[in-house]
C-alpha cells in the first residue's frame, strides 16, 4: 500500500522525471523495510497509544529528568516533565495545538511548525502515514559510516521542508534524521512485544533521551488530552498579544536587518555617571558592547559565535558562562524582539495596568530555565513598553529591575524604543539612542575575545 500511495502521489504531480520516480520507488522500498522492522503494518495499525518513561538530559552531564510521554493518533499527546527547579511541566496536545502547563511558569502555547512536527513525530501510526506526511521522497546515494552501509532517504513534507533519514542497511532501522533545525540520532534498538523501539536518542542540541520503559495500548482515555477552554483562551490571548507585538516592531523589516551599529548615551542618574555605549550586532549571533566610564576605564563584552567574553581595565579578561552568557546571547540576537514566543514558551496573563504611556496588558514569560519576567504590552500600539525582570550582573548575581521603553522611532521599517529607563535598587539608568545604522559592513574580527589589555 505504501508503494501504491507513493506512486499515486508522484504520478499526480505529473512533473516527476523518470529518474525521480525511480528514486521515489527506491525510497519507499527503504521506508517499507523500516515499517517491517518496527513490527509491520498490521501490528502498528493496532497501536492506539504508547506510554514511554524516559530519562532526559538537556545536555551531556546535566541532571537526568523524568519524562513521561503518552501519545496517540491524531497528534494528540500528553508529556510530563519533572524539572528540579519548577517541578512538573505538562504539555497536552489536542491535535490542533499544544499547551504547556506549570504552576509557576504558567501556560505555554505550542503552535506553528514546531508543534506540527511534534504532533507528527508523536503519532504511533506515523510510519504508516509517510506518503501523506512527506509527499516527496527520494532515495539518495548510500553512505558508509563506521564501516556500516547506510541507506539515505530525503523526504519533503507538505510545507516543502526537507529532512534526510539515514537507515542502517543491515537492520533496516532509522539511525539518524537530519532536519534543518536539528539532527536526531537513534540507537540501542530493542524488541518490546511485537515492536522494535530505540532506547537511546540524542540530538544536536545536546539532549539525551534514555528510554526506561515503554508500553503499547489499543485503547486510550481521551480525557488525557483535554485542555480546558479557559486555558486555551488565556494561551491564545497571550499568543495574540505576542504576535501583535511582532507586527508592531516591524518583524518583517527586522528580518532584513543583518547587522546593526547603535550608539547610546547612558545616564546613571543617581550616581551622576554619563557615558556613551556602542553596540555592534551581526546575525546570526555576534555582538560587541563597548563603553568607557569616566574614571573607571573601558569595558567590553562580546560574543564571536563561540565564546562569550568580558574584558575591562578593572577586572581583566574572563569568559561568560551560564545565565550571563544567555543574557549576552539575547543581546546578540537581532531578531530576539520578534522571537519572544520561541524564547519564552510559557506565558501567563498578568492583568492590565495603567502605565505612563497608556493602558497595558502584562504577560509573565518563562522558559524551562525559569521565569523571564513580566512583559507589558501597550493596548493602543501593541508595543512592548515595560519589562519587570532581573538583570544578571555576574555569576550567581542578579538585581531585580523595571525597564521602561518609550520614544519609539522607525528605523528602516523597524520600530525601536529610543529611550529606556532601568530602575533597580542600586541605580536609576536612562539610555538614549543617539544613532542607529543597519546593514553596515562589520569586520568579524571585532567580536573576538580581547584577552590582551
Amino acid at each position, binding site marked *: 500500500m505504501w508503494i501504491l500511495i507513493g506512486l499515486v502521489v508522484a504520478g499526480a504531480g505529473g512533473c516527476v522525471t523518470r529518474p525521480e520516480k525511480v528514486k521515489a520507488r527506491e525510497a519507499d522500498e527503504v521506508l517499507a523495510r523500516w515499517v517491517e522492522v518496527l513490527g509491520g503494518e498490521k501490528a502498528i495499525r493496532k497501536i492506539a497509544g504508547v506510554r514511554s518513561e524516559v530519562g532526559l538530559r538537556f545536555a551531556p552531564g546535566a541532571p537526568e529528568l523524568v519524562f513521561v510521554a503518552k501519545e496517540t493518533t491524531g497528534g494528540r499527546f500528553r508529556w510530563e516533565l519533572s524539572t528540579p527547579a519548577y517541578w512538573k511541566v505538562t504539555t497536552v496536545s489536542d491535535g490542533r495545538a499544544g499547551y504547556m502547563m506549570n504552576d509557576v511558569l504558567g501556560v505555554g502555547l505550542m503552535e506553528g511548525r514546531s508543534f506540527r512536527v511534534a504532533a507528527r513525530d508523536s503519532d504511533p501510526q506515523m510510519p504508516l502515514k509517510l506518503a501523506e506526511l512527506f509527499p516527496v521522497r527520494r532515495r539518495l546515494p548510500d553512505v558508509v559510516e563506521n564501516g556500516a552501509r547506510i541507506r539515505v532517504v530525503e523526504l519533503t513534507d507538505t510545507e516543502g521542508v526537507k529532512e534526510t533519514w539515514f537507515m542502517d542497511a543491515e537492520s533496516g532501522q532509522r539511525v539518524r534524521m537530519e532536519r534543518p533545525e536539528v539532527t536526531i540520532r537513534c540507537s540501542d534498538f530493542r524488541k518490546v512485544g511485537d515492536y522494535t523501539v530505540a532506547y537511546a536518542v540524542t540530538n544536536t542540541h545536546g539532549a539525551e533521551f534514555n528510554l526506561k520503559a515503554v508500553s503499547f495500548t489499543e485503547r486510550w482515555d481521551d480525557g488525557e488530552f483535554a485542555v480546558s477552554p479557559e486555558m486555551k483562551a488565556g494561551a491564545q490571548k497571550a499568543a495574540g498579544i505576542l504576535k501583535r507585538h511582532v507586527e508592531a516592531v516591524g518583524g518583517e523589516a527586522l528580518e532584513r536587518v543583518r547587522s546593526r551599529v547603535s550608539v547610546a548615551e547612558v545616564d546613571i542618574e543617581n*550616581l*551622576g555617571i554619563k557615558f556613551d555605549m556602542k553596540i555592534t550586532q551581526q546575525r546570526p549571533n555576534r555582538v560587541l558592547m563597548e563603553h568607557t566610564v569616566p*574614571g573607571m576605564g573601558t569595558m567590553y563584552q562580546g560574543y564571536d559565535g563561540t565564546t562569550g567574553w568580558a574584558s575591562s581595565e578593572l577586572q*581583566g579578561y574572563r569568559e561568560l558562562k551560564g545565565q550571563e552568557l544567555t543574557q549576552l546571547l539575547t543581546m546578540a540576537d537581532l531578531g530576539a524582539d520578534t522571537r519572544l514566543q520561541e524564547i519564552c514558551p510559557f506565558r501567563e496573563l498578568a492583568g492590565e495596568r495603567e502605565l505612563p504611556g497608556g493602558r497595558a496588558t502584562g504577560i509573565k514569560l518563562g522558559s524551562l530555565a525559569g521565569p523571564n519576567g513580566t512583559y507589558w504590552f501597550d493596548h493602543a500600539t501593541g508595543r512592548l513598553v515595560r519589562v519587570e525582570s532581573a538583570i544578571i550582573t555576574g555569576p550567581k*548575581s542578579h538585581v531585580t529591575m523595571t525597564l521602561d521603553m518609550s520614544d519609539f522611532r522607525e528605523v528602516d521599517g523597524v520600530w525601536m524604543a529610543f529611550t529606556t529607563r532601568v530602575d533597580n*535598587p*542600586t541605580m536609576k539608568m536612562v539610555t538614549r539612542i543617539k544613532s542607529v545604522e543597519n546593514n553596515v559592513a562589520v569586520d568579524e574580527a571585532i567580536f573576538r575575545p580581547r584577552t590582551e589589555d
Partner: protein
Amino acid sequence: MKLLNAGRFLLRGAAGVFLAAGALRAEEPEWKAVRETTFDLVWSTVNEAYYDPTFGGVDWAGIKKTYQARVEEADDKAELRGVLQAMLGELRKTHFAIVPREAAVFTPEERKQTGTTGAKFVTAGGEVVVADVAADSAAAAAGLRNGDKIRSVGGREVAEVARLYADTGVTEARRDFYLKSFVTAPLSGPVGGSVAVEVEGADGKVRTVELKSEMQQGAWSEPMGNLPSYPVAIEARRGEDGLGYLKFNTFSPALMKEIRVFLRELRTGDGLVIDLRGNPGGLILMASGLCGWLSAEEFSLGRMRMRSGLMNFDVFPQAKAFTGPVAVLIDSGSASTSEVLAAGLQEAGRARVFGETSAGAALPSAFLKLPTGDLLQYALADLTTPGGATLEGVGVTPDEPVKRSREDIAAESDPVLEAAKKWIGDRRRAGEGEGTK
C-alpha cells in the same frame, strides 16, 4: 555601578562639618524649599535603597517625623547637614553620610585648593601618632617626628573624643578609625589654612605647633560621576630577594594599571606583601580585579545583598597570575574594600593576614547629589564574606595579630611587616611557591 568605601568619605564628611560649621548661612529666598526637598530626598533615598526592609529594627518612618521638625529649624546648610547627619546616624551603620560640597574635589582647580600637611598618622594603643613626615613638608617644617602623639587638634582634645566614641559602644578598631579621621580631616583643609595641633614628643615633652595646609603634590583620581576626585599614591617594588611589596592609599582605578604591571612582573617562587594598613577602601570591583592576578582559580571575595537581588564579587583568574605566598597587612585604618579583599583572600586560603583588627566599616555605597550641592553617601547593600561572615561592625581578624607600638613607629621599626616577611620566607624555603591553596 560604583561601590565605595566608608573611610575616606567619613573623613571628608567630618572635615566639612568642622570647617564649614556656621560659615555657610544660606540666605537664598528658596532656602525653605531647598531644605525640605533635600530632607525628603535623603529620607526617601534611604527608605527605598536600604538593604534591610526592617531597617535593623529602626523605625525609619518615625524618624522622619522626628527629624522633620528639627529640619524646619535649620537656618543654613551647615545646620541642615548636622540634622541630616544625625538622622542618618540613627541607622548606626557606616557609609551613611552627608559630604559637604566644599569637602569634595571635582575639578583641577579644586585640587589645587585642597591641602595637606605632609604628615601621615596611625593609631597605636588608642592614640593617634605621627607615622610618616614628608621631607620639605609643612609638617616637617613644624618639627613633627615619627612617634609624636597628637593630643589635640584645633583645640579639641583627642582623648576626650576617644572617650565619646568609646561611650557609643563601637569596637576599639572602629574607635581608632574614627579617631584618626578626627585628626586628619581638619588637616586636609583648604590650602593656606592652618590648624593648631598639640603634640607630645617621644621624650614626653608637650608642644603646640601651627600646621599649615599646602597644595597636594602627586596624582589624583578622576571623578566618577558624583564620586569626587582624591589623591592617589602607590608603592610597588620587588626586591632582589624576590619579595614584592605593594601598598596603595585607596582602591582607585587610576592605580590599576600600575598594580597589574607590578603583579605580572612577579616570578614563580617570589612572595608578596599587600600592605592595606591605613587604606580606607574604594571601588570594590578593583579588589576582585586585583585578586584575579593572584589566583589560578575562580573564587568569590564576598557577596553584596540588596533589598532585592544579590551580587557576588567574583575573582576571575588572569593568565600568568601570581600564585606564590601572599601576606596581607591590616590595621584599624583598613576599611571597606580593604576589608573585603583581606577577608576574601583569607577565607579562600589565598593569603595570610597580619596586623590588627580592621575598622569593621564595610558596606557598598553610592553618592547622590543633593539640592544643597552636598553629597549623600548611602549604603546600597549588606556585605558578607563568601562564608557568610559580616564585616560591618566586626572587621577582619588577622591570622597573626601583631601590634605596632608608638615606640616602634618612633624607631621606624615595623614588626607587622617583619612577621609577614618571616612567614613568606618560611613558605618560600619550604618550596611552597605555588601559594597557600
